[in-house]
């Protein structure tokens, strides 16, 4: 009776086995083949997702609003399940630890000035607020748009969602509506 190898259990013949070399080799080959077939699916790309939007998003003064995304640019290895139906304002990553980056372009307000633009990334799970980024300078009209971004590591356990909040605070004349431009949320799984 062949002895199984210590780790993978491949059949290793012993001298008391029947002298049937082809059968022993076939048994070993099939055992290795079967084992490799179970290992192969565990080797894959890291799950990765990217959602974006380019159409302007109107923000209401003094409210924290979620970024909205209209395009699913990538969703590899079931990074987000089920694959979302656009538009969305949250993404549900698969279980594990994720490196996340969110970006957003913004411009000058239609009137008055802003003294704070804060960009925060959240989990709907117990972690809650994950990270943030702030600027206190209003872009002048001639500047076109500027971009703010934030990156962090976070761990998710479904049904945790990840979403991004944009806040602005005005000085003087109230810019009742504020426009965001291109925006993105990107994540790749880095650990369990």
């Amino acid at each position: 009776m062949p002895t199984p190898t210590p780790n993978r259990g491949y059949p290793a013949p012993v001298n008391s086995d029947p002298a049937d070399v082809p059968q022993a080799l076939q048994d070993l080959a099939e055992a290795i083949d079967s084992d490799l077939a179970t290992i192969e699916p565990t080797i894959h790309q890291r799950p990765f997702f990217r959602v974006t939007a380019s159409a302007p998003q109107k923000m209401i003064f003094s409210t924290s609003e979620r970024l909205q995304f209209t395009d699913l640019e990538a969703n590899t290895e079931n990074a987000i399940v089920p694959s979302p139906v656009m538009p969305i304002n949250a993404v549900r990553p698969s279980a594990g630890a994720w490196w996340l980056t969110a970006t957003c372009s913004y411009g000058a307000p239609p009137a008055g000035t802003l003294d704070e633009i804060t960009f925060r990334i959240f989990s709907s799970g117990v972690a809650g607020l994950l990270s943030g980024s702030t600027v206190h300078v209003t872009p002048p009209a001639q500047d076109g748009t500027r971009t703010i971004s934030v990156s962090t590591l976070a761990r998710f356990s479904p049904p945790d969602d990840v979403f991004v909040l944009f806040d602005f605070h005005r000085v003087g004349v109230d810019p009742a509506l504020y426009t965001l431009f291109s925006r993105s949320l990107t994540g790749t799984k880095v650990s369990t």
Partner: protein
Amino acid sequence: MPANTPLGITYPLYTDSIDPAVQIAEIATDTDGIVQTLVNRIAAVATRPIGRVGAIANQVIVTNTLTTLLLTGGEFSTPMEDPANNRLNLTESGVYIITAAVLCAGNAAALPYSMLLQINSDAGFSAVPAAVSLPLHNTRGTWVNVSAVHFHTGVGTDHITLSVRHNSAASVTVMNRNLTACKVSNDTGLF
């Protein structure tokens, strides 16, 4: 005398005596060890060390003083987290992503003033792998964040902490803050 493949699988030569059971068993055992090594590496890639420590209780930072941030909560409950000492401990050699963020309250001191946030390492190539400074505000809060790609040789434990310094005339209160790290690659080899 048997020979070995480059990965170490033993096989008989034409001049060797015929002993099929032993020779096939050697191939089985050698292949077993190689495959198990690969399986272990695959598992290691999927389960990289990770940690996150943070705090939300206010911490008052006095003027012009480099101050270690208190990070008293471990959020992932992993061995990397050392909230009792306000830090993350990197023990495996390799490449890490580190990210940090702190929310600073506004204060009424005369502008301008800024907050420096730096990541500290006591066993890496640099004592300060990354730092950033941003202007703060009189009344509005400010998130300051910084990220780094960091390398640890694996010699000793690399203790990762956060420090801040500001030049406001008044003390600055920091609120939400966190420090996270994840190993993303080994320093050598193909995994």
